[in-house]
């Protein structure tokens, strides 16, 4: 008798791996097998484990882990560092190992005649039934190829296993080795039998820095985001993918103004910064960027807002001393609970890790304002591409929270100039304030201008400002001087000069 088969679109199940479900437009194709291929150290086993552990902890879906390489005991121990208590899940009947790791010395096993892997399939199916598993991970296929010599036979058997798992309604992850980061999908032609869905994990050495990425090569019949995305490993939580291009510009735009903390700057900006805007302050070392940050934070706390600052150039002590030199008591503000100062040396971790840390700090503290001093310090620890991704990822995140962000960027030259930071960020910031040294009459004086103020009129003058124990004081525009921004101020000819000149 013929049955009416209803053809439905492919549904997906969320992996629970942060960021991955965005890149994959909803997770892995349900009831199918996805090949996760990667070179040594690309976090394949972690992916396979996290697929199960998130399934258990977030979706209450039991999982079977088939290990061909590491003994279960090692996996239990290794995954402890991510706070996944596999042993407890095993006791609750949520996690079951099928131990296919090598147990016997090679010389105690001989192959005579034809065989198949029906025993393995029977064990996996038995395990699935035993705990009602919805997810299965097989890690990693290369180990089984090296144990049985006949790769054609093994490929055929793995295909049989993939088909059987599909019919059982479980979603499967199989991991496989790659020899090179950019080359054939996997060793032993593994992709030939699970061609439907392929995810590639990379651990690329780029300018002496390791950079992890994840790429969805294909999902047959389903949409996903294209290209490589940064991937990080966080102790205590596992993998985090950072979806950049999938970040949508859907945040609302506010007309509410907030104080910069300096009355004159508010005036120059046409009444203050917008509440949900990103402001870039650019200037050479010592021009007063950290001072603007201090005013910005103090202004926020004074009007009852919560403020968070990430400092990458100075220690807490330095930062607090600076602030008190300008009449702001950071220690007290922090004690009162409306300010949080986070200091890191940029070198302590990679940029992707910084991004993940900063995002979680923002989510935790829920500030109204975030300041970063300085973005340029972070540039040191990244490749140009990594830095660009970081800035875009961070800016989108901050805009998404609908909070104000103030970033500083250091220009490499004392006079004039732009920084790489500016080049990466200028189009996605709402406002840009330039601080410049102005050499006049044998003196270094300071000038400030609002270069850009999206959605508002603003002062076009370059104004002189001074710094004293009360902080910043903005004065009159420089008159009769040209070329300040270019770095070579020259007196412009005045009407008085003309006749006599």
């Amino acid at each position, binding site marked *: 008798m013929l049955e009416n088969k209803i053809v439905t679109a492919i549904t997906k199940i969320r992996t629970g791996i942060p960021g991955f479900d965005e890149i994959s437009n909803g997770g892995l194709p349900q009831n199918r097998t996805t090949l996760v291929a990667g070179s040594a150290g690309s976090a394949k086993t972690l992916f396979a484990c996290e697929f199960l552990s998130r399934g258990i902890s977030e979706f209450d879906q039991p999982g079977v882990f088939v290990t061909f390489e590491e003994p279960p005991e090692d996996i239990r121990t290794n995954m402890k560092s991510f706070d996944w208590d596999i042993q407890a899940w095993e006791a609750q009947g949520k996690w079951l190992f*099928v*131990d*296919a790791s090598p*147990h*016997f010395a090679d010389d*105690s*096993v*001989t*192959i*005579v*005649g*034809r*065989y*198949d*892997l*029906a*025993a*393995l399939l*029977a*064990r996996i*199916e*038995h395990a699935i039934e035993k705990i009602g598993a919805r997810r299965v991970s097989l890690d990693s296929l290369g180990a*089984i190829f090296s*144990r*049985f010599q006949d790769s054609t036979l093994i490929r055929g058997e793995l295909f049989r296993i993939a088909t059987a798992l599909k019919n059982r309604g479980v979603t499967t992850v199989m991991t496989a080795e790659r020899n090179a980061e950019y080359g054939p999908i996997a060793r032993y032609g593994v992709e030939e039998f699970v061609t439907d869905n392929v995810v590639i994990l990379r651990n690329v050495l780029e300018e002496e820095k390791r950079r992890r990425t994840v790429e969805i090569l294909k999902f047959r019949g389903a949409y996903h985001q294209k290209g490589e995305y940064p991937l990080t490993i966080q102790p205590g939580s596992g993998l985090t993918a950072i979806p950049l291009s999938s970040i949508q510009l859907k945040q609302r735009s506010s007309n509410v103004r907030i104080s910069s903390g300096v009355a004159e700057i508010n005036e120059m900006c046409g009444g203050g910064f917008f509440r949900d805007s990103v402001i870039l302050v650019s200037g050479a070392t010592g021009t007063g960027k950290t001072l603007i940050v201090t005013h910005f934070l103090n202004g926020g706390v004074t009007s009852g807002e919560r403020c968070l600052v990430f400092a990458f150039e100075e220690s807490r002590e330095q930062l607090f001393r600076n602030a008190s030199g300008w009449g702001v008591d950071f220690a007290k503000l922090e004690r009162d609970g409306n300010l949080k100062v986070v200091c890191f040396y940029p070198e302590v971790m990679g940029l992707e890790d910084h991004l993940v840390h900063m995002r979680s700090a923002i989510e935790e503290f829920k500030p109204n304002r975030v300041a970063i001093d300085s973005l340029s310090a972070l540039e040191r620890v990244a490749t140009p591409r990594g830095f660009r991704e970081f800035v875009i990822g961070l800016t989108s995140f901050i805009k998404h929270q609908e909070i104000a962000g103030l970033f500083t960027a250091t220009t490499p030259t004392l006079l004039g100039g732009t920084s790489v930071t500016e080049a990466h960020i200028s189009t996605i910031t709402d406002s840009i304030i330039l601080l410049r040294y102005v050499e006049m009459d044998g003196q270094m004086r300071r000038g400030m201008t609002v270069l850009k103020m999206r959605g508002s009129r603003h002062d076009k003058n370059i104004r002189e400002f001074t710094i004293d124990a009360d902080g910043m004081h903005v004065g009159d525009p420089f008159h009769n001087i040209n070329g300040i921004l270019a770095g070579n101020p020259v007196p412009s000819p005045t009407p008085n000069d003309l006749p006599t000149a």
Partner: protein
Amino acid sequence: MAPCVLRLYLTGRTPRSEQALVNVRRLVSEFAIDPHELEVIDILEQPGLAEQENLLATPTLVKAIPPPVRRVIGDLSDIHAVAEALGLHTSSSPGEEDAHAGK
């Protein structure tokens, strides 16, 4: 002499399973493995035993006793190779296949 204990793990009653069973019987008779115990285990019926034995492939023949434990994977088509792998060489020279035929 302690009996030689052999376990043959199969997955269902497939032609390959039957072939392995025939071959293991030929093995014990031709090599005069006596006394012996032959356990035949269908892992579709007892998957737990496959788990215990860490089996991946079938058919698998395990020589549990006397030590050392040896395993042979496959339908055992070449019983001389099997005997060698199991370390079951006897003084009687193998090859006289008719001697115990029909057992």
